[in-house]
Every structure is written in C-alpha cells, then in structure tokens.
C-alpha cells in the first residue's frame, strides 16, 4: 500500500468508501480521534469532514488526492485536510492512507499552494483592473479631459477651420447660383439643422432672384468651447453683408452664434446653430 499512496490510483479504494463516508464520518470522528496520525484533529474531524464532504460532492474524483489538500491549505491547516481522509479511512484503510500521504506529499502540496496563490492573484488582479477601468472611464468622462479643446490640437483646429468655412457657406448665397449654394450648404450640415435649412432656403429661393440678392458671410472670430470625440461646440462671431440689385446694401447682421458641430465621416458639420 504505502508505495501506492502518492499515486492517484490509490484513490481507487475510495470507490467503496464512496458510500461509506456515511458511516465513515459516523465512525470517522471516532476513528479520526482514535487514529492518532492526525493528532490535534480532535476538533478537526468536524471541519475536516465538512470540507471533505463539500469538495467530495463537487469534485469527487479528487476526494483523496485533490480537494482535501486544497481544502487543507485553504483552511490553513494541513491537519484539517487529513482529517476527512481519516474519516473515510476506516472504511478503506488504503484510501485513508493514500489521501493522507498525498496531502502530506510536499511536492503536491506546493503545487496546490501555487495554484491557489495564482487563482487568488488572478481574481484580485482582474477585480482591480475592472475598478481601474471604471475609474479611467469616469475620469475621462468627467475630469479635465471631458473637454479636449486645445488638448486634441488636431481636432481643435480642424473643427474651427471646417465650421468657419461651413458657416460662411451656409449663410452666403448668390441669386444666380442658388442651387449650387444649397447643395454646398447641405454638404456641410447634418441632422435637424440640415432639414431646417431647406425650409429657410426655400424662402431665399423665392426672394433672392427678385431682389438680385447676394449675401456674403464672414467669421471674424471663432473659438472652441467644448470638444469631445465627434462632438464640438463653438462660439462664433458672424457678420453677414449683402447687396440687392448689384449695389444697394442689404442691412447686414452681426451675430454671436453658438454652433454645435458633429464630425461625420471625418468631416465636421453644423448640427445646430443658436444665436445668443
């Protein structure tokens, strides 16, 4: 028997004790305390059989070799681990001895300890990673980087340049090129603003030819208020000037506009315009 002890095959006899732990534990406490190999297990048969039963039912194949040593280091007491073995032992002495020996095999115990250490480390590290991922996400959504204006310099200058051009396009027209003006404006607008633009421009299409109106828009100053991903908000100072009948000036307008911009397929477009 003893040579077989470390060998998992030593588990084989446990098949019989498989049912016997019923009695085994009944007697186990007796034998457990009776067989002195497990000294100091006077109280441990209780916990020992407890863990033995749990792991045994979950993963019975390792009753002798596996779970009990696992439960042992986990419980922090090798003596406890052997206790359940003692519990099963009376029914099949070979199994008990095999289990006890396996549990006491330092190499095996070291392997199990390494497994537990790694498993605990994996759980902890993944848990910490999840917490950090949330913290990172939250910091980027609410911290200083919630606004990337002038942080993302490329997007900042791109949105300013493209929306400045877009505003000029949208608010400029010539009664001789209205269809082209409308098409150009549609290309630099998006969403609700693009739809609303058509309605406004319908009025322009009716009036402009009669008045021979030409409207030119300038943006003397613009600044990026907010930029995050594909959304931006700009403050734009806008001047509109025009003529009727070639020379007669149309009352110009100077405005302060808050422009919501959206990047669509890499190009910034006007999504909303609010005068202030």
């Amino acid at each position: 028997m003893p040579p077989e002890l470390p060998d998992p095959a030593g588990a084989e006899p446990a098949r019989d004790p498989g049912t016997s732990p019923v009695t085994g534990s009944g007697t186990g406490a007796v034998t457990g305390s009776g067989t002195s190999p497990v000294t100091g297990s006077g109280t441990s048969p209780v916990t020992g059989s407890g863990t033995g039963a749990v792991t045994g039912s979950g993963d019975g194949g390792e009753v002798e070799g596996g779970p009990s040593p696992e439960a042992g280091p986990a419980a922090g007491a090798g003596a406890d681990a052997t206790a359940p073995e003692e519990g099963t032992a009376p029914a099949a002495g070979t199994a008990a001895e095999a289990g006890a020996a396996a549990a006491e095999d330092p190499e095996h115990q070291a392997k199990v300890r390494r497994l537990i250490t790694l498993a605990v480390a994996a759980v902890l590290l993944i848990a910490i990673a999840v917490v950090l991922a949330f913290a990172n996400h939250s910091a980027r959504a609410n911290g200083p980087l919630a606004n990337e204006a002038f942080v993302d310099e490329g997007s900042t200058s791109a949105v300013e340049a493209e929306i400045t051009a877009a505003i000029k396009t949208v608010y400029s027209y010539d009664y001789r090129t209205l269809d082209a003006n409308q098409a150009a404006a549609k290309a630099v607008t998006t969403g609700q603003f693009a739809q609303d633009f058509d309605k406004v421009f319908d009025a322009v299409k009716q009036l402009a030819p009669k008045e021979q109106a030409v409207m030119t828009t300038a943006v003397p100053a613009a600044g990026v208020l907010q930029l995050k991903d594909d959304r931006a908000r700009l403050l734009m100072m806008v001047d509109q000037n025009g003529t009727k009948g070639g020379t007669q000036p149309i009352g110009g307008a100077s405005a302060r506009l808050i422009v919501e911009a959206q990047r669509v397929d890499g190009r910034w477009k006007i999504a909303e315009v609010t005068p202030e």
Partner: protein
Amino acid sequence: MRLPLVRRGAAGKAGADAGDRAATPGAGSDRIALATRISAVLAGVGLIAVLVFGILWFLALHGPGAKTAAARDDAVVAARQIALNLQSLDYNTVDKGLDTWEQSATGRLFDEIHKNRQQYADQLRKVQTSSTARVVDVALADFDPAAGTARAIASVDVSTTQNVNGTESVPVTRQVRVQLDLVRTPDAGWKAASASAIRA
C-alpha cells in the same frame, strides 16, 4: 448526527468520481496543472489590464493632456472675469472700477489705462453712466500654454444706466463681442494685453 446524512449523497458522488479518476490515473495532477496554467494566464492578463487601466487612469487625471486641459480651463475662467471687469464701470465708484481695470491688464493695455485713467474718470463722472456686464459665453480662439499666451473671444451683454438729473435711466443693454489677447504673468496669472470689440 446530521452529518452522515449530508454526506451520503456527497459520498456517493465522490465514490463514483473516484472511480472515474481511477480509470484515468494522474487526472488530479493534470487538473491541478491545467488549473494552474489557466490561473497563471488569467493573473497575467489581469496584471496587464491593471497596468494599462492604471496608467490610462493616471494619465486622464495627471497626464500632459490633463495638465493642458486644466491650464485651458484656468485661462477660460480668467478670460471670463477679465471680460466682465473691462466691460463694467460705475461712475459712483469710478476709481475702484479703474483699479479693477488695471488689475485685469498688463503690457500695452495696462499702459493705456494707466495713462488715460484721469481722462476716463472725468468723462464718466460727467456722463454719469453705470455699466454692468454679463458674460454670456467665452471661448478661446487660440491657446499656447507653453508660451503662456491665449486669445479669447466673449459674448458680453452690457447693461448701462445713466443718471439724468438725479434719476437713473432705464437700462439699455448692448450685445458686445469682445476679443482679448491674454498673457500669463509670472505672479498674477492671466491678464489682458489688449482688448477690443469685434466689429462687423
């Protein structure tokens, strides 16, 4: 003595499994080895994720981008206050008001205010107007944190009342567009080196 009953079912299964295991000698060791490998891989992945997210989180709060963002926000806050200061002046407290102007300015603008201070004060006391500003929005048009320069534009509503024969007039509000060239001074933060209205 409940224990034996509890263990009956468990033991039955344990026995069966023990049989399986007996059929494949070494399965327990193999399982431990497999579980160890899986745990090691998961721990490795976890460690990498901790490092990656840890660094990303740190950078989000303390990285160069975050520093630039904080400096930008400082400049915007300063620009808002400066725009407010330079558009407000009350003939009742003209000296205090002009002190505030000077405190908001540096360089050329400071010199201009300082040189013309008496003239401004006399003029204001004569027309007896009080202007109160409200900054609707302020944005940076340019920002160079390294050089410590910025250009800000602001929408300011300036409400002005005039004292006519002892009675304050109804306030008149003008919508003003202001441009400020800002310089970060070594000891007193952002100040305006020039201020102008953006006219059509």
